[in-house]
C-alpha cells in the first residue's frame, strides 16, 4: 500500500465527480426530497415517520454509493483505463482505497445534508448522538462502495452493473427492518436478514434515535458493518486481476 498513490487516485476521482454537477445534485438533493415525501406521506402518523426516517438515512448512502461505484468501475474497465493503470506502479489496494476515499467524502456531504434536513426541517427525533448517526451513514456509504467495487468485476457493461442494484440492494432493503420490523418477520426471514449488512445499519440508526444515550448495540452494529466493508474491499481488490487469459 502506498498512501501517495491512494491520495492521487482519490483526488483524480474527486475531480471527475466535481465536474459532474448533475450527479452531485442528484446525490445530495434526492435523499432530502424522498425524506420530505415520507414525512408528508405519514403526516398523520408521525410514529411511522420517526421509525422510517433514521432507517432511510442509513439506506440512502448505501444505494447511492453502490450505484456510483459500480458504474465508475465498469467505466474504468470498458474505457481501457483500468488495464492501463494496472501496468503502472499503482497497487490494486491503492486504487480501491483511492476510490473509497473519494466516495467517502461525497457520502459525508450527503449524510450531513440529509441529516440536517431530517432534523431541522422535517422534525425527526434527535438521535442520542448526531455524530454517531453520521458515522453510521458513512459506514453504510463505504459498504455500498465496497460492494459496488466487489460486484463490478461481474459486470461487463454499465447496464449489467445497474441491474445489480435490484439484485443485491433490494432484498436487503426489504429485509433490513425498514418495511417490517425484524422482530415481526418469520423466523427464516429474520435469519436471512441477519447475514445482510444493511440490517445492522438500520438497527443502529433506529437504536440511536430511540434512546437518550448511545447504547453498546450501536457500536456492535457499527463493528459488523465495518467488518463487511473490509471483507468486500478485500474481495474488490482481489477481483481486479492484473493478467487476463
Amino acid at each position, binding site marked *: 500500500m502506498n498512501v501517495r498513490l491512494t491520495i492521487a*487516485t482519490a483526488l483524480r476521482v474527486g475531480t471527475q465527480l466535481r465536474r459532474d454537477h448533475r450527479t452531485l445534485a442528484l446525490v445530495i438533493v434526492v435523499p432530502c426530497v424522498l425524506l420530505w415525501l415520507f414525512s408528508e406521506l405519514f403526516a398523520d402518523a408521525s410514529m411511522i415517520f420517526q421509525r422510517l426516517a433514521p432507517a432511510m438515512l442509513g439506506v440512502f448512502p448505501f444505494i447511492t454509493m453502490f450505484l456510483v461505484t459500480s458504474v465508475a468501475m465498469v467505466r474504468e474497465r470498458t474505457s*481501457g*483505463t483500468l*488495464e492501463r493503470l494496472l501496468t503502472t506502479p499503482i497497487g490494486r489496494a491503492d486504487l480501491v482505497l483511492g476510490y473509497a476515499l473519494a466516495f467517502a467524502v461525497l457520502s459525508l456531504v450527503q449524510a450531513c445534508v440529509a441529516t440536517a434536513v431530517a432534523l431541522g426541517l422535517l422534525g425527526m427525533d434527535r438521535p442520542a448522538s448526531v455524530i454517531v448517526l453520521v458515522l453510521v451513514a458513512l459506514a453504510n456509504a463505504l459498504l455500498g462502495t465496497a460492494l459496488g467495487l466487489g460486484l463490478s468485476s461481474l459486470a461487463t457493461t454499465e447496464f449489467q452493473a445497474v441491474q445489480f442494484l435490484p439484485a443485491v440492494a433490494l432484498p436487503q432493503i426489504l429485509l433490513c427492518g425498514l418495511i417490517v420490523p425484524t422482530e415481526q418477520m418469520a423466523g427464516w426471514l429474520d435469519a436471512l436478514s441477519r447475514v445482510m449488512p444493511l440490517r445492522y445499519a438500520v438497527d443502529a440508526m433506529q437504536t440511536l434515535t430511540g434512546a437518550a444515550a448511545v447504547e453498546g448495540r450501536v457500536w456492535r452494529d457499527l463493528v459488523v458493518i465495518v467488518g463487511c466493508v473490509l471483507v468486500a474491499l478485500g474481495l474488490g481488490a482481489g477481483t481486479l486481476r492484473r493478467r*487476463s487469459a
Partner: protein
Amino acid sequence: MESIKADDLVVVRGGVTVLDHLTFGVPAGTVTGLLGPSGSGKTTLLRVIVGVQKITSGTVTVLDRPAGEASLRHEFGYTTQTPSVYVDLTVAENVRYHAALHGKRRDAVDEAIASVGMSELEDRLVGKLSGGQRNRVSLACALVARPRLLLLDEPTVGLDPVLRRDLWALFKLLAAEGVTLLVSSHVMDEASRCDRLLLLRDGKLLTDDTPDGLRAVTGTHDLDEAFLRLVEHGEVAA
C-alpha cells in the same frame, strides 16, 4: 544489448493461437516497428510485454526480468490502441495523475504535454478533443514517466502528416537518448522510419530485420510490396 527478448512465445486464447512460437529481440535504444494487418497479434504481443496477458508457453524477458514482474511497472510507458484517458478530466489533469503514479513532478508534466504539442490545449477537457488529440494525450501520459522503454500501440492513428512526422522525430530523439521504443502500426509507410521491423501475420513472425534488410531480401524498394511478397511467397530464401 536487448531490452525485450521473446523465446518461443505462444499465446492461445479461447482455443485460438494468437501468437505462434515467436522468437525475437528488440535492441536497446532503437525504434522497432511492430507491423502487420489488424488481427495479426500486435496488441496481444504488447499486452504480453506489459504483463497483462497470460503466456501459454515460452518466455518473454523485459529489461532482463520476466515480463509482468512488478518492478518493471516503474520502467516502461504503455499506450493502448484506443486512447485510455479520462474524458472528464483536462489534458493536464490526465498527465498529472500519471505523473503522480510515477512520482514525477510538475516539470515532467509540462515537458510531456509540450512534446506531443498539446500545451495550448492543456486546460481543455479530453472529452472535447478529437480522436487524434486524445491519442496524443494518452502518449503524454506514457512519456511523463520518462521510461526506459516505450510500448506504443498504433500511436499515430488519426494524426495528420505533419503531426505524424513530428511524433516520429520525437521517437527518434528518445531512441538517441537511449530509450527503447516498440511501436505498432498497420501503415507500412511508417516502417521505413524504424530502425528494425517485426512483421506479424496471423500470429506468426514473418520477418525480424532492418528496413534495408527487408528490401534486399524481397528484392523491392517498396516496403508495402516487400510485405506482400513475404506473405505470398511464404518463406523467403535468406
